[in-house]
């Protein structure tokens, strides 16, 4: 299982505001490893995540997840890939307001057309593994920043994704929680064998990740572990 990006180019904006964010990017991410994407703001980290996660179709290039090109899929099939094969943790706005923790996971199951009744035990077990067993019936606004991120991680993992994409997971948590959360993501990646890509500015993430990919140079380059 792997994620391979070949010749990815993305230009955003219109007219004078057009910016080439990714220009012929090549990168490979191996299964069971968590790769930190680093680089200054505007270097294309989020765009790379969007392209890899079938949220954004590149202007050119291939996004090969286990050999299947996500960039070539129709919008409908890309949506299917997102709900069935890809898990996301976003920087903010991860959770649905008003829903209790366990329902946050079951909502994702519903989107994927899976039985929420069958998946409820698995969701509760997963949340317990993530240290949220005592929070199953709490609403999102009753959780700390770190707890919310762990709920998002649980939602991303519920359907056993091949690819886990994480955007600035530690931006809203303190240093201790940041390290714990990063270790949880990296450990989960190794345990489940999925491909994990983490966009981050946080040196703590860089320290824990299996490898790193620097978006600052042109072309971006893999950093040694």
């Amino acid at each position: 299982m792997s994620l391979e990006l070949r010749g990815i180019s993305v230009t955003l904006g219109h007219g004078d505001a057009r910016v080439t964010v990714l220009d012929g990017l090549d990168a490979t991410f191996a299964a069971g490893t968590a790769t930190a994407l680093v680089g200054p703001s505007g270097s294309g980290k989020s765009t790379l995540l969007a392209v890899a996660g079938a949220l954004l179709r590149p202007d050119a290039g291939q996004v090969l997840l286990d050999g299947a090109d996500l960039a070539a899929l129709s919008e409908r099939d890309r949506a299917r890939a997102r709900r069935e094969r890809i898990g996301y943790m976003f920087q903010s706005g991860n959770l649905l307001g008003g829903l209790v923790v366990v329902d946050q996971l079951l909502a994702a199951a519903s989107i994927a057309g899976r039985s929420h009744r069958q998946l409820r035990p698995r969701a509760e077990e997963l949340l317990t593994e993530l240290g949220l067993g005592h929070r199953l019936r709490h609403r999102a606004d009753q959780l700390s920043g770190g707890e919310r991120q762990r709920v998002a991680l649980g939602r991303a993992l519920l359907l056993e994704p091949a690819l886990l994409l994480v955007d600035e997971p530690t931006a809203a948590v303190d240093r201790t929680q940041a390290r714990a959360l990063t270790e949880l993501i990296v450990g989960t990646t190794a345990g489940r064998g999925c491909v994990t890509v983490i966009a981050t500015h946080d040196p703590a993430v860089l320290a824990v990740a299996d490898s790193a990919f620097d978006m600052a140079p042109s072309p971006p380059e893999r950093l040694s572990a």
Partner: protein
Amino acid sequence: MHLALLELKAARGRFLLMGAVVVLVAALVGIVSGFTTGLGDDTVSALRRLSATDLAFSPDVKTDQFARSLVGADTLAAWQRQPGVRATGLGVALTRGTTERGVEVDLAAFGVDPAVFLSPGVERGARLAEDGQVVVSGKLADQGVRIGDTLTVDRIGVRLTVVGVTGSSAYGHVPVAYVTPATWQRIRFAVPGAQQATAELPYQYSAVAIQAVPGTDLAAVDRRLGTRTVPLADAFAAAPGYSGEKVTMTSIQTFLYLIAPLVVGAFFGIWTVQRQPELALLRALGASRRRLLGHTLAQASAVVVGGTLVGAALAGAVGLLLGAQVPFSLPAPTLAATMATVALAGLAGAALTLRRVATADPTTMLGAGR
């Protein structure tokens, strides 16, 4: 659907508030509809009960025909000779009477020939048979007029014996009393205050009631006989206040039908704007546009249909509470049609927000589309 229910449950306060507004709009539309039908019945139910297809008035009268039109006996006789037509005189006059027990009532005297097709059936007592008799509407019976009473028409002193009670029928919000044409002419043409009726009463009617075989050229008969014939339903407009009331009540209903989609549309518009980030999140997690649109419609349907059903029950309950004290009538088909219109109008309002739901952008979750 599970996700739609989760969202409904999570935002139940807001949805209940919106549902309450739909309940009130639906109840108000139902109540207005009940009054529209009730007032209409109270104005023209006696005309509706006439077993005639058309009414012929004098040609010079364009409005308020029942009070102003007079058709002579010669004209009636001429109508009766027309092929494909059965015709009889109809007299209509509003007056007032008092029984010997002191019960004072307003009444609409309908002069009808007891031997032909306008003669009213009775629920109690005897049918109308001869001059000096009266068959009263059930509404007059409710006001205390009994079979066997002598009802004296105020000011002109015409005495009528109550022989029967027919179903509830009214004209211009006044209960109807059926008398013979001769008795009606005594009421209509008598000089108020005179001790006896005028010696020679005009042998005239308000209109000629017609039962015409389909295809009969009534316009040609009108041209020959100098009358103006209108279908029975069109003659309702000649009843006092009917057109004004109908326009007023229909206007109120129309405004409510316009308000319903605006209110529901505004709610779902604000709701959709507020949840744009969540819609983007759901899209990012792989929810298809179709699924999100389905969820939104399911939520709107739950609020609109649920609110409408409760509103319908409320309007029905109001009708039961009002009873027969006010002109309110809300038969099941009318209620169903009214509530279906409210529900459709509400859903149309919700549908206005669907474009915004469909265009939620999943890339905003990563800020990558900026």
